[in-house]
Structures are given as C-alpha cells and as structure tokens.
C-alpha cells in the first residue's frame, strides 16, 4: 500500500491517471467493515474467490489450476537474459454457456497466454481445460471444432482479399463452397465490409483490417467465440457492428464469448462477467457492477488539480490531503457520496477555489476496481 504517491511526473498530462488512485480506495474499503470486497482489497493481488456459476447453467469453459511458465532466456549480445515467466499462475475459471465473458488486464498480465491454452495453441504445464464438455488437453484437435479464435495477428490473411479471406476461413472450418459463400456474404454485410470485399486485407487501415479478421472468425458457426482484443484500432461504427454481430450470435445461437480486452470502457459496456488478471492470476471475477460494488462500494472518485500548490491553510483542504493520492498538482480521492459533496462544496468556495485549476467527479469504473484490487494499472485503455 505504500506505492500511493509515486510518479509525480504524470501531473502534467491531463489524461494520465496517477498510480495513487489505488491507495485511498483500498483504504476506504479497509475502513468499511460491511464491504464484501474489503478482504480482497487488503490482501492485494492474491487469488480471489471466483463466483460459482448458477446451478442449471453448465459451464461452457472450465479451466482448473492452469499453470504455464515460459522458460528463461539466456543473455545474448545486445539483449539481456530474462528469468522464467509464470504467465499463468494457477488459474481457475468457469465461463457459463451463453455469456460474454471478459478477461481484463494490462499488457503482459497473461490474458493472451490464457486464451492460447483455451484454444489449444499452447499446452499448460499443468491444469485442466474443458470446453463444452470436451477435455481439450486429452483431445487438443477438438478445439478447432468447438470454437472460433480471433488472434492478434492477421498475417495468414494479409494478402487475400477480404472476401476470399472470409470464404477460405469458412471452407477450412468445414463448410462446403456454397455455405461458405453464403455465410461470407452474410457476415460481410453484417459488419459493413461489403464495399471493401474486393480489397486486399493488407491494403486496409488498421481498424478495417481488424474488422476483416473478425469477419473471418465469424464465418462458420461455432458455439464458443474466443476473441483476443477484437476491436483494437476500430472506429465507433465498426465497434458497434462487431458487438451487434457478437450479440446476435449469442441471442440466436446461444454462443458463448470469451473476450480479451484491456479497454475498461468497452469491458463495462459489453461484458456479462469479467475476470481481472494481473501477473498471471485472476484477482477478481464478477459482473462489472458486482465488482464495483464489492471493491469500491458506492463511492465516487474526485480529482482535483491545483494551479500551483494546494492551499493547505484551508482546514477542509488539509483534511482532504490526508486522504488523497497526490501526484504533483493532481489529487485523487475516493470518497463516499456525502463526503464527496462536502468536499466539492469546500473546494469550490473562497481561497480553495482560487487555487483550483480543475476538478472532476466520476462514478467508479472497472479501472478503479482494478486498481483497488492491487493491479498495477499501467497499460489499461480508456476510450
């Protein structure tokens, strides 16, 4: 809990969130005995209890005790060696049938490693992977017949046209020519890609290329969709098309979706449940709303930016200072609603207001959850 006031240099950039946001949140959670998430917040990044699925909803995905360690690399000229990395550190997880389940965490948290094991692209050192009633460790070849996977790379499709990329993927997913073409046309229309059908994937912009890959992933119905950061680089129209297409598959075919993201805003919008990953462990798993209630309660976040320095001679401000995570001119406070109201009144009046450059009041986001749980908080995207 001592990392609250590091990184003073971030005060200059308006959008950067100071690391310190974590400290007051954890403190408040610890001070509030009734908050169920408080123990988790106190315990920091330890494995949190994953909620049991409701009875009657069989899990679509069941991961038990997954461990994956990447071996150490030896130092070579020009590049230092790296110690072994435990990218997956005893992950237990159940995804219910028909839900959109998210894996949230910053780069390097182990999200992609986890889905690579889920899709059979990588074998865990130990643990179990069961998808829709099939043991994928014993039958790795079944993964391709149960799920569609959208990876981060598009190089296999780069030189094809959008249309041929979708059609070929459909053919390789076992469709005959006519079915593959029918589904190709349907998916391209659904995602608004029809005008680009004849263009080579490589020649498209980043977001369009990603959309073409999503199209390829959606051709050929699968009960489980595993999408690794599907909307990276997309404009809002494309994003909406992707979520609509994913949701339709869930609604009409009962498809389950496992989604990797490091975009907290998107996670709140589309996910039924979310597991928060940090350093190869799941540090929390619940609905976005449930996680917020459990970890940060109904508090709000108050950010204050002072013009020069904080007017500590004002008693109310001095009182707030004790609770704030300070990063240069920027203070971040996690407060209950009443306390926040009083604080806003105090700082928007008299000498305090004269010293105030900017302030903002916001409801908690998944990012607050992440930080409250002890995540490192770097590398999350908010857009």
């Amino acid at each position, binding site marked *: 809990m001592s990392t609250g006031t590091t990184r003073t240099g971030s005060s200059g950039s308006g959008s950067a969130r100071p690391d310190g946001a974590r400290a007051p949140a954890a403190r408040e959670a610890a001070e509030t005995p009734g908050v169920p998430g408080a123990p988790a917040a106190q315990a920091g990044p330890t494995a949190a209890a994953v909620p049991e699925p409701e009875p009657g909803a*069989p*899990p679509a995905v069941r991961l038990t005790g997954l461990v994956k360690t990447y071996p150490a690399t030896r130092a070579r000229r020009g590049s230092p060696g790296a110690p072994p990395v435990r990218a997956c550190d005893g992950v237990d997880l159940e995804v219910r049938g028909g839900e959109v389940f998210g894996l949230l965490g910053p780069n390097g948290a182990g999200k992609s490693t986890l889905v690579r094991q889920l*899709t*059979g*692209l*990588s*074998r865990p050192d130990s643990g179990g992977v*069961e998808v*829709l*009633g*099939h*043991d994928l460790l*014993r*039958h*790795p*070849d*079944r*993964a*391709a*017949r*149960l*799920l*569609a*996977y959208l*990876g*981060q*790379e*598009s*190089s*296999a*499709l780069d*030189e*094809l*046209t959008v249309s*041929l*990329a979708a*059609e*070929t*993927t459909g*053919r*390789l*997913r*076992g469709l*005959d*020519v006519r079915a593959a073409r029918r589904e190709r046309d349907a998916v391209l229309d659904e995602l608004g890609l029809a005008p680009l059908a004849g263009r*080579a994937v490589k020649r498209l912009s980043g977001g369009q290329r990603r959309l073409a890959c999503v199209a*390829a992933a959606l051709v*050929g*119905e*699968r*009960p489980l969709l595993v999408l690794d950061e599907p909307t990276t680089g997309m404009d809002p129209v494309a994003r909406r098309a992707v979520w609509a297409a994913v949701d339709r598959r869930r609604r009409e075919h009962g498809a389950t979706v496992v989604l990797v993201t490091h975009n907290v805003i998107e996670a709140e919008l589309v996910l039924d449940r979310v597991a928060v990953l940090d350093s190869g462990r799941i540090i929390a798993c619940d609905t976005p709303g449930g996680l917020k209630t459990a970890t940060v309660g109904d508090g709000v976040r108050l950010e204050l930016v002072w013009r020069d320095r904080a007017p500590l001679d004002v008693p109310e401000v001095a009182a707030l200072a004790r609770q704030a995570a300070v990063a240069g001119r920027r203070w971040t406070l996690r407060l209950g609603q009443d306390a926040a109201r009083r604080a806003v009144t105090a700082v928007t009046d008299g000498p305090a207001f004269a010293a105030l450059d900017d302030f903002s009041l916001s409801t908690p986001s998944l990012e607050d959850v992440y930080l409250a749980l002890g995540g490192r908080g770097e590398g999350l995207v908010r857009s």
Partner: protein
Amino acid sequence: MRNEDGARAAAAAGEPDRAEVPGLAADLASASEYRPPSAAAPDSASTPDSASVPEAEGESGDRAVEPVAPVPLAARARLRPALGAVYRAQLSRARVARIPLLFVATFQSLGIMVLMRGVVDGGAEARAVVSGASVLVVAFVALNLLAQYFGRLRADGGLDHYATLPVPPAAVVLGTAAAYASFTVPGVVVTAVAGGVLFQLPLAGLWVLAAVIPLAGAALAGLGAALGLLAPKPELATLCGQLGMSAALLLGVLPGGALPVPVRWVRELLPSTYGVEALDRAFEARPQWGEAALDLGVCAAVGLVSLAAAAWAYRRAAVR
C-alpha cells in the same frame, strides 16, 4: 493359421480388459479415437462427416455432481476441399504479391542461359544449361520463397489462424506448396522453350515438363516448407532457402560429369538435380524415357518424404 493365432492373442490380451474395466475401455476407445492430425489427415478425407455425432466418451468419473453433456463437434474440413481452398487462396495471393518475383526468377534463368551461350556450344553442356536454368525457376519459387513464407508465418503468429481451424496440416502444407509450384509453370515453360531455341535443342520432348514441374515442385516445395517450419528463426529459414537455391543454380546448370567427386556427391543429394536430369534427357535427340522416369521417381519420393516432414513440422510449430 497365423490369423487365428493373432485373433486369439488379441482376445487374450485386449478383450478381457475392455470387458472388465469400463474406465480403461473408455480410455482405450478415446485413445484410439484420437490420432495425431498428420496421421488423421488422409483418413478424414475418406470418412464422410460423421463429425456431427458427439464424440463423447464416458469420462464422467470426477463429474458425477454436474454432468456436462458434450456439445457436438463441428465437422472437420476434409483433406481435398481444404487443400483446394488453401490452394485457391494461395494462388490468388501469389497473383497479387509474387508476380514481380516470378519475373525475377524467369529473367534470372534467361540471363544465365544468355551468359552461358558464349561459353557453351551445343551438345550435353547446352542441355545441362537449359534444363538447369529451367528447374532453377522452380527452386527459386518453391524452395526459396516458400521457406521464407512459412518462416515468416511461423514467426509472426500467422500459423495460429490455421492451427485453430479444423483443417488437416497436410492440406495447408500441400495446398500452399502446390500453389507455389504451379506458380512456377509459366516461368519454367518460357525458360525451357527460350533455352531450346537459343541452343537449338529439339523441343519435342518438352511435354515432360508436365511431370517435371509437379514432381520437382513437390520435392523442392516440401523441402522449402520443412525448412521454413523447422528453422528456429525466420532469418535462418530465409538463409537456408537462399543457400538451397544457390546450390540448385550452381550444381544444376553445370553438367555433372565435369565436377570434382565431392561436389558431384552434393549434386546427387540435391533433389532438384533429378528434375534437371529428367529434363536434360528430354532434350536429347532420342530421349531415354525410362531413365527420365527413374529420375522423376526420385523427385516424387523426396517430395513425399519432405512434404510429410513439413506437415509434421507444421503441427509442431502450431502448438507452442
């Protein structure tokens, strides 16, 4: 007699176990159901899509509380249609991206022949130059470019795309190799005809190209694919492809008889040599087709082995 013994032995060894221990029987059943995809590939082509039947087995031991009915598996892509789809996609890709390279390959071979025109005047040497230069086009595209393609695909994660589709590895490797090999056709034909005219060789036997291109193509493309998929780094795959092509150039264009013995051994080891020899015989006034068929048989055998190796390497590269 032997059959009966075998049956009795099987009954003694296998059947009682199956009957008495259902769990083991299930394990055995599932073990026999699971085949490494490289072995499963040709088989899956011949079986109709029995895949929509759930392939569940009784592994409910630790799950008595909450039995999960396995969801039916989607159909596998069968070998031939999948191969066709990969071939078609790769050929379209080649049309866009590889035409300049085909020109390079062809002009390189034409240039070599023009150069050698000043040195060589007819006879066995001329035949060697023309057939070596023609097969060089195959070596350039099928060995060098394919090694680079697979090396890059493996390095940047592009293989994940294929690895998460229910497609036999052989379909991906064969489809890609076939596309690269067919892409060499115009270049080889142009080179062989131009060479024949340049050195005044009989062109009547050139129909043998119809066998030389696919078989030398299979051998070299299989080698290229295996190199690309086995090399630990894409740079290494490129290097190996380049070296292989250089070897095909030097050892193919020069007539074998004039080379020192160790170099001749290396030449014998190179699969492209046999394609060159077969084409060489076709340029003779009275071709010995039996010998040519033998040469092409070597190409076919190397092709078979190297493509199988490439399919194995693909499987290995896909799961990391």
